[in-house]
């Protein structure tokens, strides 16, 4: 029954493989696969329209999705205990890479986010940290009594704040905050006492005005523009005004695929990346948005079930934090496009066009699959 016990049986139990067919053989969860494929297909349809019927864009996205699924399957083969053992190492490696940005990083648009190994690799270390941080926290709490006392909470906060801080000063506030959020989610799932949260929450509220003077001008502008887009209708407010018009004019059932005027006449910026939900809302209307949210909901549901089935604290926390982080991405993206959150440059998971973030997502799904398939007992 105990997770520790299961963890000592490398490779999981052979008995399940025999009657679960190919999915189990590849350590995959058929339900999650089905939901992912549905979301991805839906996303491709929307992307096809958002890119003005440009098949080149769709094909490029298909290639990325193929890579993503491949990466997911590959990671699903890694036994969880190996993940548990290597988590602190990976975290350390991630930190080193984040630090390497300072001497060796490439500057793009005024911020250093990329590491380039010419001809070999070109990547953002912050993407790796999106997974390594939850892993190291899950590992940390796995080794400790839960709910955690003050000292583990402080230690885990330190583990969380160092990489988040390094990313925020790149500067990349959006990713930094998202990574901090994913780490924080591990803390909450691990049983972080509510009283700590209340105290920290109160502290944040008090220090928020001070924060206002610390953040950069463009970030301040984004926040102001969220409250009043008409403040700068041709500049910073343009995106949000146009996306609200796009969503609103979709009505209940939308203008039909490829018929959205806001996106096809280029009024909607970033229509195939961060603002793709506005294309969906304009062309498929309220029905389309609710359908996509329903699929996301199913994904979250399945992810939670998988986490509840996990055999140990490490698996539960990792699986749960990935699932909740995913839902935060969905909320932040749609919230920003529909004008209830500031514009922070978070893509819509599995639907937005784009490479690195997509691969990170699939790597995370791979971790979930690995945890789920290498277990002895099924509760749900």
């Amino acid at each position, binding site marked *: 029954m105990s997770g520790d016990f299961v963890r000592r049986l490398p490779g999981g139990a052979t008995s399940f493989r025999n009657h679960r067919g190919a999915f189990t053989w590849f350590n995959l969860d058929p339900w999650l696969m089905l939901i992912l494929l549905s979301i991805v297909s839906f996303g491709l349809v929307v992307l096809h329209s958002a890119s003005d019927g440009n098949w080149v864009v769709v094909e490029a996205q298909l290639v990325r999705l193929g890579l993503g699924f491949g990466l997911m399957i590959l990671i699903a083969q890694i036994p969880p205990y190996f993940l548990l053992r290597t988590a602190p190492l990976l975290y350390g490696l991630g930190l080193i890479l984040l630090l390497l940005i300072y001497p060796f990083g490439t500057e793009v648009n005024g911020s250093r986010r990329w590491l380039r190994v010419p001809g070999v690799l070109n990547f953002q270390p912050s993407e790796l940290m999106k997974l390594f941080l939850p892993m190291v926290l899950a590992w940390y709490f796995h080794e400790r*009594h839960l709910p955690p006392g003050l000292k583990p909470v402080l230690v885990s906060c330190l583990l969380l704040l160092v990489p988040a801080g390094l990313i925020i000063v790149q500067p990349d506030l959006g990713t930094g905050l998202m990574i901090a959020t994913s780490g924080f989610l591990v803390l909450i799932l691990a049983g972080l006492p509510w009283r700590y949260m209340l105290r920290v929450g109160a502290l944040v509220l008090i220090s928020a005005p001070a924060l206002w003077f610390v953040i950069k001008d463009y970030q301040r502008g984004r926040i102001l523009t969220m409250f009043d887009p008409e403040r700068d209708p041709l500049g910073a407010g343009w995106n949000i005004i146009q996306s609200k018009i796009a969503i609103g004019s979709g009505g209940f059932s939308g203008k039909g695929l490829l018929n959205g005027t*806001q996106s096809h006449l280029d009024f909607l910026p970033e229509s195939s990346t961060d603002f793709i939900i506005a294309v969906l809302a304009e062309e498929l209307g309220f029905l389309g*948005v609710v359908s996509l949210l329903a699929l996301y909901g199913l994904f979250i549901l399945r992810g939670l079930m998988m986490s509840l089935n996990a055999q140990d604290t490490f698996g539960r926390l990792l699986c749960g934090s990935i699932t909740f982080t995913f839902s935060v991405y969905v909320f932040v993206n749609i919230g920003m496009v529909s004008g209830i959150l500031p514009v922070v440059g978070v893509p819509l998971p599995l639907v937005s066009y784009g490479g690195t973030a997509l691969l990170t997502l699939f790597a995370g799904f791979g971790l979930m699959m690995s945890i789920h398939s290498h277990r002895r007992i099924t509760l749900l």
Partner: protein
Amino acid sequence: MREALALKDHRSESQIYVERAATGAVVVLVLFSLLILRVGYLQTVQYSDSVARSEKNRVQVVARPPVRGLILDRQGVLLADNRPSRNLEVIPEQIVNMEDTLFHLATVLEMSEEETARFRRLSGRTTRRFESAPVLFDLSDEQVARFEANRFRFPGLSVQAKLVRNYPQGALMAHAVGSVRRINDRDAASLNATAYASTDHIGKLGVERFYETELLGQVGYDRVEANARGRMMRVLDGVKPINGQNLTLYLDAGLQAAADRALDGRRGAVVAIDPKTGGILALLSRPAYDPNLFVQGISHQNYNALRTSMDAPLFNRAIQGQYQPGSTLKPFIGLIALGGSTVTVSDSIEDPGWYQLPGNERLYRDWNWTKTNDGGHGRVNIEKALYRSCNVYFYDLAVRLGIDRLSQDLKQFGFGQASVLDLPDANAGLLPSRAWKRATRKLPWYPGDTVNLGIGHGDILVTPLQMAAAVAALANRGRWVAPRMAQNQSFEDAARSSPSGAGQLPEHVWEPIIGGMEKVVHRGNQIYGENGTAWSYIGRDIEYRMAGKSGTAQVVAIEQGEVYEASIIEERKRKHAWFIAFAPIEDPKIALAVLLENGGGGSEYAAPVAREIIDYYLLEGAGGRVPDVAMARRQ
């Protein structure tokens, strides 16, 4: 290290996780509901507003300019038409770096400094987002080719073809037809922005200005689908523009050209009127300018040359030039006197060559007065007073009429008012009166002023157009016809512009005066001092009966301030030569006034001009021969 040694309670840890996960699930549910509510709010409550705004984004209304109406002469000769012009237009929002663009463009198109400056000035003029503004005009084929070859370097710039005004007759018709100009900021403020959307020009002078509404037409529009960068994707629907009406004038291009030949480069003006209609057959002012220079905007250099020229080519002498009428006023004074029975046809006076007011030393001389005092015209009645242009007779007559009757009754011939119907820039001239002199000079009216007025000197001023209109009324034996440029136009205010008292002179006054004027031209082969004043210059071989009267006007003043050569000043001090005429006497077809600035004697210099013009009209033009100038541009 107690903590580390204690056993982990897996059940309770799992319980904590289940609690937390359940809480998280509820939070996610709440957040997703929030999203659905938000999107639902946008798509229901904000639906119609958003649809309207997305339509407004998508659909742009693009004005389609009407084609400006043509202006034609009575025989269909084009006086103003439209030609295509390729202009360079700029959308300022799409220019990344204005200085770079200008630098490269100046090289590619070989632009002058002035063109570059103009580009800068005009490109700052657009008011709507992504609206294009013309900045360079009339690109040559080579310029267009060079621009297109380098187009990739010039985002935001494009070559657009537009129709612009063209005046095929050039300077010949400049003062008759007027011209259009580019609409400037000051115009734009007072114009109906819709009516002039995408129309770049407006009538600024003459007929072009007066008939602006008719010539302009009505603007149409296209509703087009445009993308966020203002690029037109497709036309949805629209309304076609209604092109401007064509305007047919009374003007006769052949006659105008004949008048120009007759002036032979001298400064002056000719106005010819058809007495039956009041239609203006010729309206010439020389020197003139090429109105085409103004259409796309004249260069500073050219404009300054025109503006500062001593010959004042921009000045429309025919309708704005105000001169003393000189002796050409005499027939009209005679008409008034006969009409009011101040004199009769048979009354005569003895002309010793000079006139004196009672109780005044000053001698008012006749034109043939000599120091030996043997001048004068002897016994003079009104007829002889006209054909010999006797000053003393009219000194006497003016004094007998008195200033009040003169200033009152001369009005009926249109003096002292702008009676032309459709030339907005015409001057009113000046018909002096006691009240006028008191008001402007703060002086009483002196008897000597009346004497001078008798021979058209002193304060009285008339324009060549006014003179021609008065002659037309004379030719019509009193029937007033208001001068006008355009045919087939209904004038609601035609009655208003008819001068007071017009057409009320009794019938018997006309033939004696016309007879006197006939003798000016036709009385010849007499003893010394008995020929008509113009006979020896124009009357010997004339094929029709013409009534005429010469005049010589004093030059009032030379404009100070400019340094001119002495010979030029001498020339400018010479008197202005007038000749008024109509023909044929029995059935008048043309009435005209000729003015030569500093031309010298009216009979000697102005009369031959009048003869040549009337010859053309009665013997060549009316014979149906279409003049060469007309053939060249006939549609």
